[in-house]
């Protein structure tokens, strides 16, 4: 039982903030974010990588935080759902999800959001089919996904429009 108590200090950035923490080597990244950093917006639904609720952005790419060890995040940058809004102003995806009833219980929502942020970074003009494929690894038992797809298309449009205004 010696090895399970072993700890390593990791340095990482979460939502732009630098942390240096000793962690047990076997601690999952999801547990580290939730219980050590108290960022409980990242949810744990299955702990075997199927449901997608725990999805975070790891150096900008979507990843299952329930399938990674916290020590693997050493030297990396993570974005969780808490990092999507700018202060009181929500990300266009967050606003659109509310408008399109793209969430009910909201448990899958953080993983949906991080997955969709990645999609819109990669593809600012997705089709409904693109969106469905992007979230096909994120399970939702409440919405039947329709509102999420509609919201994403709307948010993408708004983001393109505001990017156009800026350029």
């Amino acid at each position, binding site marked *: 039982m010696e090895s399970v108590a072993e700890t390593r200090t990791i340095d990482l950035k979460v939502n732009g903030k630098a942390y240096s923490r000793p962690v047990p080597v076997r601690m999952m990244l999801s547990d580290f974010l*939730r*219980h050590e950093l*108290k960022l409980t917006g990242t949810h744990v639904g299955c702990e075997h990588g199927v449901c997608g609720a725990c999805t975070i952005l790891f150096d900008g790419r979507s990843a299952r935080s329930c399938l990674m060890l916290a020590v693997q995040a050493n030297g990396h940058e993570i974005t969780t759902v808490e990092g999507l809004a700018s202060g009181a102003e929500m990300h266009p995806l967050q606003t659109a999800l509310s408008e399109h009833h793209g*969430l009910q*219980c909201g*448990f899958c*929502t953080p993983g949906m959001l991080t997955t969709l942020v990645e999609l819109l970074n990669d593809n600012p003009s997705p089709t409904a089919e693109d969106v469905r494929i992007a979230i096909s690894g994120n399970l939702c038992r409440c919405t039947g996904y329709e509102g*999420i797809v509609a919201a994403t298309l709307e948010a993408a449009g708004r983001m393109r429009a505001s990017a156009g205004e800026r350029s």
Partner: protein
Amino acid sequence: MSGRIVGQSVERLEDRALLRGEARFVDDISFPGTWHVAFVRSAHAHALILGVDKTAALEIPGVHAVLTMADLEPHLSDRLLRVALPSPAYRQELHRPVLADTEVVHVGEPIAAVIADSRYIAEDAAALVVVDYDPLPAISDCRDAMAPGAPRAHKNAPHNIAAEFDMGYGDCDAAFAKAAHVFRESYWQHRGVAQSMECRGVIAALEPMSDVLTMWSSTQTPHAGKRVLCGLLGRDEDKLRVITPDVGGGFGPKLVFYPEEAVVALAAQLFGHPIKWIEDRREHFVSTTQERDQHWDMEIAVDAQGRVLGLRGALLHDHGAYTARGVNVAYGSAAAITLPYVIPAYFLDIKLVVTNKVSVTPIRGAGQPQAVFVMERLLDRAARELKIDRAEIRRRNLVSGAQIPYKTPLKTRGGMQVVLDSGDYPACQAAALERAGWEAFHTRKAAALAKGRHIGLGVANYVEGTGRGPFEPVSVRVAENGRIHVASGAAAMGQSTKTMLAQVVAEQLGCDMSNITVVAGDTGAIELGMGGFNSRQAVMAGSSAHAAALKVRQKALHVASHMLQVGEQALEIEGNVVRLKGGDGPQVELAEVAKAVAGLPGYYIPGNVEPGLQATEHVIINDMTYANGTCVVEVKVDADTGLVTVSRVVFAHDCGRVLHPKIVEGQIIGGIAHGLGNALFEWMGFDENAQPVSTTLAEYLLMSSTEMPPPIEILHLESPSPLNELGIKGVGESGVIPMTAAVASAVEDALSPFGVSITKVPLSPPDLIALIHGASQEKRS
């Protein structure tokens, strides 16, 4: 009939916190010094427990205790969780023990609780707890349980029948004797798992100053949970509080009180540390209640025109290992099967059979999807045999609009007569058919077939009993700062309950949703409550919220009229003020009104009213209100691979007055997704020893975004219920109810060139291939 807030798709109160990661689900609650629990669960479906060796587990650093029944029993008033709803139908008592100590009767049954500094350590230690089992024969299939000489699911039980009863009316023998045609068929709908995305969980903490034990549980029924716990732990009502925090989906099983709640609450009391247990997904598969396994052997008698004369048969209902709720699921099936139709004679023999599987309690739909599946399959069969259009045979048998209110001879489980109170079922079916292009479909089907493609259209009707009474209390209080506080025994598990209550209250008290705070599911906030199940909360809590808000409104207007020296009739409430109608004149803030009725020592309360700007109401509605709908599904079936693609869903429904169109549509679409899963994918497998064989989400397939059909076409009919002031009927379960029936109908239609007959769900590709090749459907349990 819309108001300014009621009937509008206003922003949900719940959304902002959920979207920003600021919501508080049970596992988000933590206190310093919390100890964590991992349960040791039975590896066998049926075995005697000869002993439990804790030695190795207790040696692990960070482990505080390994609790078995022997440790708990001195502190409990009862070894068993006696939570079964009353019924004369029981043939034996099957209450769950708080922890199993002599015999285990399903895989996953909790035997011991390891308590440690972290969940990691607790799981390490749980793996080292040695349970000495003596395995016994297990019952996996409820049909086998009925065979002569079958092993008993509980070793000392006299038989494997948990309960039996029959239901019916009219003269079935005469109806069948005179019938032009009698068709006979057996049907099976398979067992499924609720799969809320958040598993169950509980954290309990004893507050030493007040000696109040508080349990936060992801439960749909906090008040019922408190009642059970007070009894088990011998605590006074004011020394125990149960709170439902944000809940990540319920879908039924979270209405049940579970052994883990009792163990965690007692451990918090014993150790003085906050104690937390969060169910993992594998535990969800083996310890959270399940539903839907039913075998029906049925006969339908029809005249030459396809009018139903009688319906009779037998229902074998897989009850699982224990009675964790009651006979309610099977009762709900039996009482639902006839509902949309005029059935002159009906008889059903119902047996609830004990198996060595997880206990069965309601999952969204609660027995109704199975009943609708059977009824609609029988009608399709009769239509096929009589060469009548499938929609036409339904039209001939539906309860007509003119017959409403239609008093059926059936009774609810509480003995109230089933009266179909509102709606126009034929109009609803006609609307769905028209939108779906039913009439012209045969041309499209023939054209597709000419190109070697198999497309099909299916239809199913349902009537859903909603708004289970007798009441759900709501209190409305205007605080002295003008903020409106609403509390209810209703529990929110993701279905927008807080928004619904706030809408109903806001409509009467200023129409400002942002001025309203809702507490739903906290026994500390309101004394009585039932909770969330049976599509009841908008009907029951909504009615109470309306009544309470009206009382507060009347009082506010009355008091303000005294304060402003203006007649009540001339006043209105707008935002946070009471003012002269139109706003051009004197006004007083709600906060000032609330302060005025809070009283001052030695002075009159303005208007001579009772103190406090508040009201608590528990509107009693005993009768259920019946929602209805028609679903048309279009599929294409690949006859080579058995792959079914759902290409279109049209859903016409009537839930009375719609409080929030987007929430209603969301409930329906979510239910449809669940029902499509039940029809095509969701399979909770057990082997012949009752070992579960699908215990991950990679094995048990939920609907994902790519399997969903294109946007569902929802048609709203709106016949207000006469049973409540707001005219509401429940909608939370409606989407799921007709789906297996509609999909089976569509697939059978698509495969009509092969003469395929579908009698069970889910429909897996191998099953369909076998059917296409003429084989009978293989037994798979």
